[in-house]
């Protein structure tokens, strides 16, 4: 047992430090890299587990341990040990450990295992650091670390174009959210002078914040929306399936997407007074839950169904957070735990299935029940938990969410979540049916299908077992998180009734549609597939298309402005201005082409006219200037040179010759003509003067 004050630091420092040694271990003994990573994660788990004991001792208030980091800015490096952070840390570390064990075998045929385990360790370390952080800046550090790791892990098979693009998409989309989060954090800092959660809470209570709280809270919420893949920033998550399955399991089950939820749950204590904020969370979550559930129903990709389901479940969690009651907050955290368990389980199962069948297309799969009994059983447990079928953990947590919604009397949200739950049950049964039940498809006929090796299925069984029993720990968890929700009999009963109705609707529908396959051939093929609604859903409500349009627009704008301003714009401008004037001067100045020339011409007067006569073929001011200068100098130099053969003269001659030579070179090769530069600078100067005149003097 490690003392709490060390464990809180070590739990994230160990994976971080451990990841640095991965290349070294790989040099010494390449095959051991996986087990090394498992050992490091195990140490982290030992730390997080020993944090729990401190929380159970009855005094569940927060402990803060800090060391100075940037004294100049009054920022400390500190960790916060409270029930919420310890809970999230344990989810991340424990599930991370199981996924690591699974990966040792799963990834053994890959070439780049050191890179994989390096980023996995960093990923877990980043997530642990994020949940343990006591101030927003430190949290943001780890927040970005997690984002970077996800980028490299999703793009792990970077030689595949799709994977590389998916990694970039995940990074950029979440970064859009991150930037807003940073803006929110900075606004808080500017107003309160601290990043510390507890201090900010006190200052807010004291009314020290002058900027509207709504602005700050919404900005920070956008960060969470990006990370937790809520509408409209959900588009990265389905593509994130391009990564290896353990990565998907880690992203969906334990780390990345939970970070957004954690952020909202954490800043909940700061902003729970802001009613519009809560309403926004509720509806962002509710709408996300419903939209993603419909997308999961129409997707025909083994892993994408699960990805859409993650978005949908996270939406439910978000909406529960937004209810604003203590029970709603608790329900969301409860569902975080059960979702972490069943979703990582399902992804690991999907990884196994993909490993033996080499396909992700649900239409090509089917009838794997007999060949893979263990995988079948654990998948069914996972899917039933997802569908909310008792006694698995998903049922209990979903039930709690319904209880919270019913007690809050929020009818629109109830309808959204009710619809989501029906769809969830249908698509989870569909998933099971199309992978395991029915006849083996022709595609799989020549595959040798078998259950995986024990190293792989032991984590699966552990996760399945946890999914079975976690639901019964509702009361201890309530006690642990320090939530004192009023037990309301009517709420519990109504919630149970709702769950029963959901199952009563969903199970028969799913049974007929997917198990009996009554409707598929007739109904779907003819009507649904060409239905505009179906098209809308299967194209993901056209979010991607719109974003692509915007991106292309920005790119086009960049190229356009670059072309216009950099090359032609400044050149064109003088023509427009000079157009009228040039008509007047045409008789004498018809060979002069640029504004600057004419300017010089007016000033230089007669002297220039003679110069023009000799240099009619030259059309740019600069060249002519060089010629006049050089020609004159050469002439003098030559004459002088004949008489006085001195060193200095030769220098002048050399210089003059060179000038002519380079003048000719320059004439041949123009990038952006110099007069344009001067003109742009002149325009800038006028802009300065105008702005100053308008604003500077009071």
């Amino acid at each position, binding site marked *: 047992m490690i003392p709490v004050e060390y464990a809180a630091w070590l739990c994230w420092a160990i994976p971080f430090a451990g990841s640095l040694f991965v290349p070294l271990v790989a040099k010494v003994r390449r095959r051991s890299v996986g087990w090394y990573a498992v050992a490091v994660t195990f140490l982290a788990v030992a730390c997080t587990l020993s944090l729990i004991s401190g929380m159970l001792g009855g005094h569940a208030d927060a402990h803060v341990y800090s060391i100075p980091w940037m004294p100049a800015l009054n920022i400390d490096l500190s960790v916060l040990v409270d029930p919420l952070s310890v809970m999230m840390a344990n989810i991340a570390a424990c599930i991370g450990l199981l996924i690591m064990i699974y990966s040792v075998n799963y990834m053994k045929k890959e070439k780049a295992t050191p890179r994989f385990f390096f980023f996995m360790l960093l990923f877990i370390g980043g997530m642990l650091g994020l949940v343990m952080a006591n101030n927003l800046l430190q949290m943001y550090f780890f927040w970005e670390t997690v984002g970077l790791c996800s980028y490299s892990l999703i793009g792990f098979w970077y030689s595949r174009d799709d994977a590389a*693009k998916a990694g970039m998409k995940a990074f950029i989309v979440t970064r859009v959210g991150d930037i807003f989060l940073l803006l929110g954090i900075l606004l808080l800092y500017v107003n309160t002078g601290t990043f510390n959660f507890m201090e900010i809470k006190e200052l807010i209570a004291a009314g020290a914040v002058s900027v509207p709280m709504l602005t700050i809270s919404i900005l920070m919420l956008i960060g969470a929306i990006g990370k937790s893949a809520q509408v409209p920033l959900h588009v990265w998550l389905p593509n994130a399936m391009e990564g290896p399955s353990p990565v998907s399991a880690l992203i969906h089950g334990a780390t990345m997407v939970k970070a957004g939820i954690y952020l909202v749950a954490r800043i909940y204590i700061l902003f729970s007074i802001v009613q519009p904020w809560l309403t926004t969370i509720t509806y962002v979550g509710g709408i996300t839950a419903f939209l993603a559930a419909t997308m999961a129903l129409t997707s025909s990709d083994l892993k994408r169904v699960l990805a859409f389901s993650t978005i949908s479940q996270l939406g439910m969690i978000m909406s529960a957070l937004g209810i604003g009651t203590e029970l709603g907050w608790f329900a969301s955290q409860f569902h975080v735990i059960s979702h972490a368990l069943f979703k990582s389980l399902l992804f690991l199962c999907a990884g196994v299935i993909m490993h033996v069948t080499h396909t992700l297309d649900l239409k090509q799969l089917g009838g794997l029940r007999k060949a893979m009994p263990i995988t079948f059983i654990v998948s069914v447990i996972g899917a039933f938990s997802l569908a909310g079928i008792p006694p698995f953990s998903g049922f209990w947590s979903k039930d709690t969410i319904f209880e919270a919604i019913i007690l809050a009397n929020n009818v629109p949200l109830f309808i959204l979540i009710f619809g989501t739950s029906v769809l969830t049950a249908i698509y989870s049964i569909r998933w099971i049916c199309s992978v395991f039940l029915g006849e083996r498809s022709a595609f799989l006929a020549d595959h040798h299908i078998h259950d995986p090796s024990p190293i792989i299925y032991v984590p699966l069984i552990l996760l399945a077992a946890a999914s079975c029993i976690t639901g019964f720990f509702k009361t201890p968890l309530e006690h642990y998180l320090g939530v004192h929700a009023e037990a309301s009999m009517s709420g519990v009963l109504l919630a149970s009734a709702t769950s029963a109705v959901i199952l009563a609707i969903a199970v028969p529908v799913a049974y007929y549609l997917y198990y009996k396959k009554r409707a598929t051939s007739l109904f779907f093929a003819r009507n649904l597939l060409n239905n505009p609604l179906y098209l809308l859903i299967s194209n993901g409500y056209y979010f991607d298309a719109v974003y692509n349009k915007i991106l292309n627009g920005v790119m086009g704008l960049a190229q356009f*402005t670059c072309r216009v301003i950099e090359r032609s714009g400044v050149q064109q401008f003088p023509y427009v201005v000079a157009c009228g004037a040039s008509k007047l001067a045409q008789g004498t100045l018809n060979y002069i082409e640029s504004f600057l020339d004419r300017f010089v011409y007016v000033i230089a007067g007669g002297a220039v006219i003679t110069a023009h006569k000799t240099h009619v073929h030259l059309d740019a001011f600069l060249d002519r200037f060089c010629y006049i200068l050089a020609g004159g100098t050469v002439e003098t130099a030559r004459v002088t040179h004949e008489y006085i053969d001195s060193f200095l003269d030769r220098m002048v001659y050399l210089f003059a010759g060179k000038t002519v030579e380079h003048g000719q*070179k320059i004439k041949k090769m123009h*990038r952006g003509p110099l007069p344009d530069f001067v003109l742009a600078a002149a325009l800038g100067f006028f802009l300065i003067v105008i*702005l100053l005149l308008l604003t500077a*003097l009071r």
Partner: protein
Amino acid sequence: MNIIDILLPTIVFTVCSLLTVPLLRLVRKTKFNPQHFMVAWVLLTFSAAAAGVFRIATEYFGQAESFLQISSVDTLLESMSTVFLVDTVSVYMVIAYLIVGSITCLYGVLHVSSQENLSERYYALMLMVTGTVIAATFSGDLLTLFIFWEATAAGSCFLVAYKKSRESLESALKYLVMVIIASGFIIYGLSLIFGLTGSLNFWTVRDVLLTTANPELLVVAFAFIIAGYAIETAIVPFHMWMPDAYTAAPDSASAFLSSIVDQGSYYVLLRVLLFILTPTAVVDWRFTVAIFSAITMTAGNLFALAQQNVKRMISYVCIADIGYNLIAITSITSIGLMGNLFFFFVAAMETALAFMVIGVFRKMGLETLDDLSGMGRKMPLTSVAFVCAALSFSGVPLFAGFIAKYMVFTSVLQSSVAWLAVVGVLNSVLQTSYFLRVIHYFYAKPAKSDVPFKEPKKLLVPIYCLVVIIVVLGLYPDLALDLLSAAAALLPT
């Protein structure tokens, strides 16, 4: 402390630079390896100058006043004489120049082969320019500042023209013409200031301006001076010489110029705006500068996005950086000043690092994004260094760029032009996207040919020095911020 003490670093650089040409020619005639000699010579010069700076710093920190003023003439004519100034800001900047300058000069020595004809002039110019930048930073009146700054610009011009190709000569000429126009603007503005105040001494000017009866005339003077320095710092739309010059200059010269001369020019702008012409109660220039900041950031990033030539892209990033710097200058807060100074240092290292890595690639004839496809696997170490620079540019935590951007954005949120923060933040997203595009080319695209490339071990040494400093400062920014918190107190109110 007398005037010799303060000029000592500059004198060291100048003398060493003059000695470089004959010494290197001598060494070439012996069996001694000229490259080894030059490495030793650069290190010797920089450590001698560092010793001089160290002496100034100890003397300055040993005394109670917040700045030291050293003039060449006593009492009577003090307001007319050449004055030098030592305060935390200038000491910090000079330390930054020495660190980044020594690394980029070493890179220059390793990159431009010493066997190459005329290379000794190139090295001499680098040392000379470092010396003049340091003198400009220490100067305490507007005329001294102007003179040393023009010397710097002249030296930079020759660095750009070193290759004597068409492009480099053309862009050097453009640079020269722009610099001359800029000095015209500045001199005219200075003459107006002198007319208004009767002095060019920083403190006298400031004190007189605070109570000036002629704010209209001051506006005119201000406009001219700012336009002049805007050309030298390449604020959009005064920027057009810069991409040409940096693209055409030798690769090591781009790294050197972007890290030393560019940062020096920001410093000059900061000094002039914040410390000398600052009385915002008299002339409120904040909105004007804010507009230019927004234009500069946006244009720099948009143009960078549109580039195919990586070196040109990095030059546009330099321009975008100026926009970020202007954000912090606009805010006139202590955190903004700290952020600015930290940003100078970090941006110097980032751009130097990026140019140095690009220099390695260009030595092999790889110039455009397409050429760089698949380089991540062929030259892993070099590419990783570029990735570090890119992440730091985009403001990803763990790298120093994040801390710098964080301070800059915080400062502007505290000020009256908070909308600039939004523009800046959106620009950050834009910046991330085009840097990711480069990384995408590095790692995701298949390589164009199967020719194996060898990583240049020697060139990687200075490159990785910078990577280490960027990461260390990103994790523990207090190393620099500690020095800066004193600077924040200097800000005139």
